[in-house]
């Protein structure tokens, strides 16, 4: 069984190639860092497995996501490397290729975006490249599927034996040092020369590994001596710069022979678009306008009518059908109650929002796939800088609008560790799509006229709270070194319909699955807790177990405007998944459908209380899955608890201000 590792620079179409080769769909985006962890797919034609690794520029890692690749090469067993190379950026792409060739596993090079390179006036002689690299080089256009068969052909030809590693001469001083270090290394399946080179380049995971076998002081001594001697004889101050210089010379020599430029170069389309979207004056307004349009589509123009139609369908034909079906088989009133009042109310209440969530995911996919996301980082940087963050931190936040879990993971692309931590802790303030049903329910009941505005204000509030928290944290707990910002702006590409729809489906299908599994189970549990009480089964709901639990919380929540046991119970279940708040309310208010639920809550809340409630829902706690991913990403229990604690505190304070302030203003 063959294990092929897919390695390449960010934005080279790695994920497109992965999809073309495996037929297994994966999430593609046009900004650095879409693949934050390695993903595995089955190669077509039973060839084996393909492992997609995060995009990197060099094996020597700078940020967390890049360390994944080094660790992979050090710890995992694989048979070959498929190296994807952006043909229009050969010089810097081959830098990574060279490091991979030095490792000594069989390598197949896929020269992607051959069409773009041609458009830029580059003529590439792949045969010559292949000759110098001593490995197959295949021109491909991954997005269109051109050249894929050839790649498969070469992968099939690979036999598992190790290929001879590429050896470049690094000058006498360094070569002697490499030999000296190699003598100290124990035998293992890892290539010693490669380890030594990566060591001298300053690769941290390699340092950590070598420390286990060689005394640290010995390592430091070899490194310092070599660096000193290089600095004396060459005009470079550091070893990594020296190594880079040698490699670049080698690459330039190869490219001189294999590439010719044709003189006519048009202004690329990307440059023309960038003149507008990152324009001095128009950049920010264009971004705002785009976001506004996304919201309008999601809530007003497209989402709401679809949701209403779905609601009518579920409460009408579906409920009636199930009801008469149960009647026909002679189900008892208990079974009828659990199905109709529990499952249909709970699951149906959430399913109704699927159209809106899908539309939102569609737009997020569109932003990612087109290449605009990196421009958003540019446009937002100045603003984010004020709050001690950088523009890149805004990308995890936008992803977080879809779901906080990938948002938290996307923070890995941020180079500065303290800025990354900050972004992780703040991303849950972004209103994820699971919170959307709650807003829609309440906004529809109380603010039908200004529904989009109210929902927009919540998203905005989430951002404002996150930024203010960033400012507070960077001036207290996380007083960090200067914030840094550097972002690669990939060329724009026209999103492909199929890719876009699959990407949307991939993001949204989990939501449907959740409705059929956990939300269904949760609804049954909630229904049962509201059906049973100390007095036995089928008690009055106000005497149920759930009323007792929720009632206790309710008293704590009275000062912020919603001291009912129903609200208390909904908040507990909402920690498991935010959309369950709606299921819970639907069951607890014994409502047949969303519009009648809206009628019921309109009777038991006043608008001010309702607004305070949805603000609380926005901020009060990251959901269980997000808490777990924060724990994993920060690797710190303290920060995880902090992220939960501060959300709760902030939510309480803000809701208190809204409710009590509103009452003072006479709104209550």
């Amino acid at each position, binding site marked *: 069984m063959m294990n092929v590792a897919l390695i390449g620079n960010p934005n080279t179409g790695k994920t497109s190639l992965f999809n073309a080769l495996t037929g297994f769909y994966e999430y593609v985006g046009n900004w650095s860092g879409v693949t934050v962890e390695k993903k595995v797919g089955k190669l077509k034609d039973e060839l084996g497995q393909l492992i997609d690794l995060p995009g990197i520029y060099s094996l020597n890692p700078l940020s967390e996501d890049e360390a994944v690749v080094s660790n992979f090469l050090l710890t995992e067993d694989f048979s070959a490397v498929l190296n994807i190379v952006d043909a229009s*950026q050969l010089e810097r792409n081959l830098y990574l290729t060279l490091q991979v060739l030095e490792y000594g596993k069989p390598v197949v090079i896929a020269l992607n975006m051959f069409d773009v390179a041609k458009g830029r006036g580059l003529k590439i002689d792949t045969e010559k490249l292949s000759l110098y690299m001593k490995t197959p080089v295949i021109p491909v256009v991954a997005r269109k599927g051109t050249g894929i068969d050839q790649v498969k052909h070469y992968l099939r030809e690979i036999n598992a034996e190790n290929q001879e590693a590429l050896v470049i001469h690094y000058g006498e001083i360094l070569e002697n040092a490499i030999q000296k270090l190699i003598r100290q290394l124990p035998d293992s399946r890892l290539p010693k020369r490669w380890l030594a080179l990566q060591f001298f380049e300053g690769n941290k995971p390699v340092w950590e590994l070598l420390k286990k076998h060689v005394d640290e002081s010995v390592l430091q001594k070899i490194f310092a001596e070599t660096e000193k001697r290089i600095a004396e004889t060459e005009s470079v101050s550091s070893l990594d710069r020296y190594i880079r210089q040698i490699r670049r010379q080698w690459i330039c020599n190869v490219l001189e022979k294999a590439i010719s430029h044709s003189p006519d170069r048009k202004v*690329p389309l990307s440059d023309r678009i960038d003149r507008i979207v990152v324009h001095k004056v128009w950049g920010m307004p264009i971004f705002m306008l785009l976001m506004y349009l996304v919201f309008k589509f999601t809530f007003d123009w497209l989402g709401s009518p679809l949701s209403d139609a779905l609601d009518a369908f579920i409460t009408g034909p579906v409920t009636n059908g199930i009801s008469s079906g149960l009647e026909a088989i002679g189900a008892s009133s208990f079974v009828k109650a659990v199905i109709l009042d529990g499952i249909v109310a709970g699951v149906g209440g959430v399913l109704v929002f699927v159209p809106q969530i899908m539309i939102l995911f569609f737009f997020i996919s569109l932003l990612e796939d087109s290449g605009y996301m990196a421009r958003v980082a540019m446009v937002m940087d100045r603003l984010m800088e004020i709050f001690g963050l950088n523009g890149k931190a805004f990308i995890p936040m936008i992803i977080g609008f879809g779901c906080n879990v990938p948002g938290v993971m996307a923070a890995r692309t941020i180079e500065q560790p303290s800025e990354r931590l900050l972004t992780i802790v703040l991303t849950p303030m972004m209103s994820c799509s699971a919170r959307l049903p709650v807003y829609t329910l309440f906004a529809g009941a109380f603010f039908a006229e200004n529904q989009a505005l109210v929902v927009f204000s919540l998203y905005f509030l989430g951002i404002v709270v996150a930024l203010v928290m960033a400012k507070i944290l960077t001036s207290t707990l996380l007083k960090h070194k200067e914030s840094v910002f550097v972002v690669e702006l990939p060329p724009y590409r026209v999103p492909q319909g199929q890719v876009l729809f699959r990407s949307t489906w991939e993001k949204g299908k989990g939501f449907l699955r959740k409705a059929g599994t956990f939300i269904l189970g949760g609804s049954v549990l909630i229904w049962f807790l509201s059906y049973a009480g100390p007095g036995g089964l089928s008690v009055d709901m106000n005497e149920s177990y759930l009323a007792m639990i929720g009632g206790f919380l309710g008293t704590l929540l009275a000062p912020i405007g919603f001291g009912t046991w129903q609200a208390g119970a909904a908040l507990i279940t909402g920690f498991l998944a935010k959309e369950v708040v709606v299921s819970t309310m639907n069951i607890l208010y014994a409502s047949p459908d969303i519009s009648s639920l809206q009628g019921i809550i309109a009777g038991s809340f006043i608008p001010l209380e309702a607004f305070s409630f949805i603000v609380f829902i926005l901020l009060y706690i990251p959901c269980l899955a997000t808490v777990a991913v924060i724990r994993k990403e920060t690797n710190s229990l303290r920060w995880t608890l902090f992220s939960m604690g501060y959300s709760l505190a902030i939510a309480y304070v803000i809701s208190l201000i809204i409710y009590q302030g509103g009452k003072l203003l006479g709104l209550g």
Partner: protein
Amino acid sequence: MTLADIQPGKKARIVSIENVNKLVRRRLIDLGIMEGSIICLKNSLPFGGPYTLEADGQSIGIRRREASLIEVSNL
């Protein structure tokens, strides 16, 4: 002369990136932008916002402060 002194739309050759923040410098080098590279300042965002640079068909964004630490010479 530094990159921050260049007019938008003009090109220059990088003389030194030694003073740039370590993380940014590493990333610039990764992207093939270093001593000797020819770089074009494409545009800038308002209120001291970041610059868009282009080198060899590759666009990147960096902050003004960092740009003012990159020493360049006229072509």
